[in-house]
C-alpha cells in the first residue's frame, strides 16, 4: 500500500521583519491510509505549520510534499483546490461554522463547492446522526454547545468523503466531557478506516492515537519517516 501523504525533508521559514523563523527544519513524515497520528509539542514548535503543509494549505520553503505519491509543489492553485476538496477534511479549533446556516446547511457547504448533487442532504443528515446530532439538524450555531458545534464541524469535514482528516486542536475549545465525546468520535472514524492527523495538547487524545510524534523547535524528537502501513 502506498503512502497517503509524505513530507520529504521539508522546511518552512517565515520572515518577520529582518528576523527569519525556522518553523520546520528538514522534517520528513509518511502517513499510511487508515493511520491515526497525533502531533504534540509545545507552542511554537511547528505543529500547526506541519498540519498546513500536510493539507496543502501552505507550501514548504524547501523539500517536497507528496499526496498519494505525487508531488504537489508545481500544482496550480486550481489543482490544489481540487486536491484539498477530494483528499482532506479540516477541523479547526474555532469551528468556522457559518452563523446564518443551520447545522444541516453547514454540513452541506463543502459539497456545494465540490459540485456534488448526489443526495447531499441525505448524506448530511446521516453524518449529523452519526455524530449524535439528529435532533439538532435545523439549529443554528448560536443554539449549539461548543461540543455540538465541533461535532457539526466534524460532520462537515466528512461530507466530501475525504481520505484524511486533519484536525488542529479539535478539543482545544471544549470542556472535558465534550472533549471526551470528540475523542471517541475520532477513534470511531479511524476504526472505520479514515486516516486522521491531529495536532493537540490534549494528552488523552494523543493517547487515543496509534502514533504520537513529538515536535520541538521544528524537529521531530522521536521519529523519522514511519514505515508504510503502521
Amino acid at each position, binding site marked *: 500500500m502506498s503512502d497517503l501523504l509524505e513530507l520529504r525533508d521539508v522546511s518552512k521559514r517565515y520572515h518577520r521583519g529582518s528576523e527569519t523563523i525556522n518553523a520546520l527544519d528538514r522534517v520528513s513524515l509518511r502517513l499510511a491510509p487508515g493511520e491515526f497520528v497525533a502531533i504534540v509539542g509545545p507552542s511554537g514548535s511547528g505543529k*500547526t505549520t506541519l*498540519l*498546513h503543509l500536510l*493539507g496543502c*494549505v*501552505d507550501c514548504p520553503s524547501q523539500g517536497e510534499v507528496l499526496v498519494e505519491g505525487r508531488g504537489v509543489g508545481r500544482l496550480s*492553485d*486550481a489543482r490544489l*483546490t*481540487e486536491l*484539498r*476538496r*477530494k483528499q*482532506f*477534511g*479540516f477541523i*479547526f*479549533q*474555532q469551528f*468556522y461554522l*457559518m*452563523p*446564518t*446556516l443551520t447545522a444541516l*446547511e453547514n454540513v*452541506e*457547504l*463543502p*459539497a*456545494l*463547492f*465540490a459540485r456534488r448533487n448526489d443526495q*447531499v442532504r441525505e448524506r448530511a443528515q446521516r453524518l449529523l446522526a452519526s455524530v449524535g446530532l439528529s435532533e439538532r439538524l435545523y439549529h443554528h450555531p448560536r443554539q449549539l454547545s461548543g461540543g455540538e458545534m465541533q461535532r457539526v464541524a466534524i460532520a*462537515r*469535514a466528512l461530507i*466530501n468523503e475525504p481520505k484524511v482528516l486533519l484536525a*488542529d*486542536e479539535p478539543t482545544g475549545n471544549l470542556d472535558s466531557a465534550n472533549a471526551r465525546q470528540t475523542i471517541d468520535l475520532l477513534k470511531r472514524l479511524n476504526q472505520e478506516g479514515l486516516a486522521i492527523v491531529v495536532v493537540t495538547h490534549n494528552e488523552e487524545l494523543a493517547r487515543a492515537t496509534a502514533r504520537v510524534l513529538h515536535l520541538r523547535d521544528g524537529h521531530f524528537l522521536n521519529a523519522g519517516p514511519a514505515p508504510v502501513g503502521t
Partner: protein
Amino acid sequence: MTLIGLAAKNLARHKARTVLTVVGVGIAAACLVSILAFDRGYRQALQEELGRSGVHLFVSTEGCPLEAASLILHGGEIPKFLNMERLTQVKAVQGVKEAGGFLIFSVLTPDGSRVDLFYGVTDEVRTLKPNWKVQGSWFKDEHSIILGAEAARVEKRSVGDKLYLASLDREFEVVGILNRTGSQDDSFFFLPLVTAQTLFRKPGKLTAIGVQVSDLSRLQQVKDRLETLPDVYVVTSEQMGQEIMGFVGGTKALMTAVLLVALIVSAVGVLNTVLMAAVERQAEFGYLRCVGAGRADVARLVLLETLTVCTTGGLIGLLIGVAFASRTEQWMRPLLVYAPGGPLLRPDAGVLGIALVAMVGLGLLAGLYPAWRASRVSPMEAVRNE
C-alpha cells in the same frame, strides 16, 4: 444549498447594514427611473401637444426661433409686432388652410404677486386648437373674456361671473372657461383680438400668427412661400419642439448631475458594504478555500451578494419611481420653462428595463474589487487565525 442561497444568508448577517445599502440603491434607482421616464415622457408629451394643436407653422417677427417658441407657447413678450395685413397675406398663401393671429401681453398684478398672461385671439384659434373644449360660449362682445381652467380656479370665477381686472382697470364678463388642457393655456386670459389690441395700445398689431396647412406633405413648400413675406420668421412645429427641448436642456442637465451623484453615492455605498463584509470574513473565505472553494467560487459568492443587494434595491427603486411618478411630476412642472399637457413622466417597460440593467451593472462594477480581493484570500487566512 445553493450559492445564491448562501449569498442571501450572508447578507442577512448584518441586516441594518444591508437594508441601508438596499435603500441607497433604491433611491438611486428611483432617481434613474424618474429621469429616464421624464426624458421619454417630456418628448412624447411635447410631440403629442404640438400634434394636437393643429398649428403646423408659426409666423412671428424676424428673430430667433427660441423667441418664437417662447412667445407662442409660453406667453413671453418681445417689443416686436407683425402688422394685421400680414395675417391677410398669410391666409392668401397657397397651401394655407387656416391662419389665426395672436397678441400676447404679460401684466403684473397691482399687488405684485404674479404676472397675468393675456392672449388676444381671433375666431380662427378654435380651428387651430382643436383640443379646446369651452364651457359656456365664445366671445359675445368686446367685454367678454375666456379663462383658462387654472386662471378660473385662481380667480374663483364661473361662467357668467363678472371679473374686474385691476391691472387693466376693466371689468369683463366670463363667457367661457376652457376645460383643463394640461398645457400653459390653462393659466391664460383670452380676449377678443381687437379688445387686446385696444387695451394694450397696439391697434392692428400681432405678436404671432399660427398656420394650419392643407397638406402636411407640402409643409416645406408652404414654409418657403411664407418666408418670402417681408420681416417674418417661420418655424415648423417640429422646430418648435426642438427649441422647447432645448429650453429644458438645463433642467435635464441639473437632474442628470443629481442622478450621477446619487449613482456614485450608491455605488460607493455598495462597494463599502461588500468590501467591509469581505474584509471581515477573510478567515471564513480562507476556510471555504480549505474545504475546496476555488477562487472563482469565492468571487462568485461576493458578486452574488452584491447583485442581490443591487437587484433588490433596483426593484424597490423601480416600484418607488413608478408609484411616485405623478407626485414627482407635480413637483417638477412648476420648475420647467415649458410644460406640455399630458403626463411628463412615463415609466414604461423600456425605462424600467434600462434602469434595472443599469442598477445590476452598477452592482457588478461595485462588486468587482471586493470579489477580486476575496478571491485572493489564501486558505492560510483560516489557519492563521487559529
